[in-house]
């Protein structure tokens, strides 16, 4: 992990509220793993004060891509950064997904902006494993399928694909999924991850989940991002350092 200034080459609006940043950074692209994240200082001023964490969305040669929506002051500044300006990046942070293993089919499960880390996961698995993507959102605008493969969509309001949540969609396809050796890679809102965990435990699916928590530093010194462990009850794990990716069985969601 290090701090680096890398130039912003392009801002792509993939729908009316989701943005992609294209950044030239061979220093980072040569080492960053799917599921890791970067902490960006969006302003030199004292508000916003803290860096903003972004999971790595995709890597293509010397370029990396970050996906985000405008949540507040910080992301708003980022979405309007001048092209060519340098981004002050601290990273790579966290552990990332473990894509290796004795499975045939990777099942990607994402809700809303939880889809952000999976284009890179898909790229790394392409040609090595089968990939099935189950992508959900509240409405069709929240179902983000950018650079994913073999996508089945779900929306809460039924405006796109299956009407219901993404875990219900998994259950609907249970027989197909049970018939092969699989591993689930998931990211999304807490409510989704809660039901996904029940699903995985009930039907015996292996699952790695990328978690989220408010944090100040991103590398372990602020102790701001605890997550309860199911293995050791006397201490918390840290989302930034021990995660953000965990075996879904090992953490309380």
């Amino acid at each position, binding site marked *: 992990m*290090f701090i680096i200034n890398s130039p912003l080459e392009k801002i792509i609006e993939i729908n009316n509220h989701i943005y992609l940043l294209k950044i030239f950074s061979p220093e980072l692209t040569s080492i960053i793993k799917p599921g890791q994240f970067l902490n960006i200082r969006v302003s030199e001023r004292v508000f916003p004060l803290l860096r903003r964490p972004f999971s790595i969305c995709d890597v293509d040669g010397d370029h990396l891509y970050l996906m985000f929506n405008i949540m507040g002051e910080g992301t708003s500044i980022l979405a309007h950064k001048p092209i060519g300006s340098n981004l002050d990046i601290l990273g790579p942070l966290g552990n990332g997904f473990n894509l290796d293993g004795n499975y045939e089919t990777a099942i990607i499960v994402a809700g809303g902006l939880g889809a952000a880390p999976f284009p890179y996961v898909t790229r790394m698995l392409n040609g090595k494993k089968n990939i099935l993507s189950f992508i959900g959102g509240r409405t069709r605008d929240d179902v983000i399928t950018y650079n994913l493969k073999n996508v089945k969509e779900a929306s809460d309001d039924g405006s796109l694909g299956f009407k219901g949540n993404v875990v219900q969609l998994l259950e609907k396809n249970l027989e197909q999924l049970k018939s092969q050796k699989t591993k689930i890679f998931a990211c999304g809102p807490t409510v989704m991850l809660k039901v996904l965990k029940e699903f995985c435990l009930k039907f015996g699916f292996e699952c790695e989940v990328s978690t989220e928590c408010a944090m*100040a530093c991103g*590398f372990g010194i602020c102790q701001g991002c605890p997550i309860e462990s199911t293995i050791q009850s006397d201490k918390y794990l840290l989302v930034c350092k021990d995660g953000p990716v965990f075996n879904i069985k090992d953490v309380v969601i």
Partner: protein
Amino acid sequence: MSTVDLSVKIGSLTLRNPIMLASGTVGYGNEMAEFTDLNKLGAIVTKSLSLKPRKGNPPQRIVETPAGMLNAIGLANVGVEVFLKEKIPFLKKFDVPLICNIAASTFEEYVECTKILTEEETIKAFEINVSCPNVREGGLSFGNNINSVATITEKVRAVTNKPIIMKLSPNVSYIAEFAKAAKDNGADAVSAINTLVGAAFNIFTRKPKIQNVTGGLSGPAIKPVAIAKVLEISRQVDLPIIGIGGIMDWRDVIEFMIAGSSAVQIGTLNFIDPSAPGKIITQLEDYCIKIGVENISSLIASYQL
């Protein structure tokens, strides 16, 4: 070769420069070492240690506020035993004074921790945290009570010969009285300030933004309060002060020194730019050369009121 003497004294402890890293913002040093050469620093203050490990508060522990942040970590730490066994070996590799911050729930626990830790030669001084706003027992209930601060200072003094720094709370009306109580009972210095009690609500859910409801406010938002508290102590008590509160650059360091600080601690800034402390040391030297200051210690309490 350096023409400026950046060294400062905190009681019997000489620091090569006034830049210390604040407790709770450097963990046990290993992560910071990837960004800043620890050997360049004046001193490092460890995360608060208690006798037994503490799990800390449940999430959400942190929220950003205008020019600052609230935290309610709840003194999560590995405890004295694990610290000595697993954390000290890494810190031993550096030539930088190590100051142990101690936080406890009872008078006896402060004494017990100090007794054990004072045996470790790598530890050069103690900072006694009587001002954590985020724990139910100890913390502010001690820091707001002048008799408790006096008693803790006295009891800790009795079990160590190493310098004692009492870390004071700004959540009191007259901080100088607390500094005086610390001095009268044998403290070698005070550090000021710990965080200010703050709270923030989500206006849609009407719930507090951090689980503990209140947290400690840090960052540039608190700097003027910290400067005022340092000045208050400096004008009334003859005791070295370590200034803390929202330092973002070398100018802030100079301001704290002018207001009466012998040294300073960098805290929240480490979360944002962990390479900043090293850069600030170089910039302090440049400033001194520019204005013709040979000894940075001549800036201490140099205010012109």
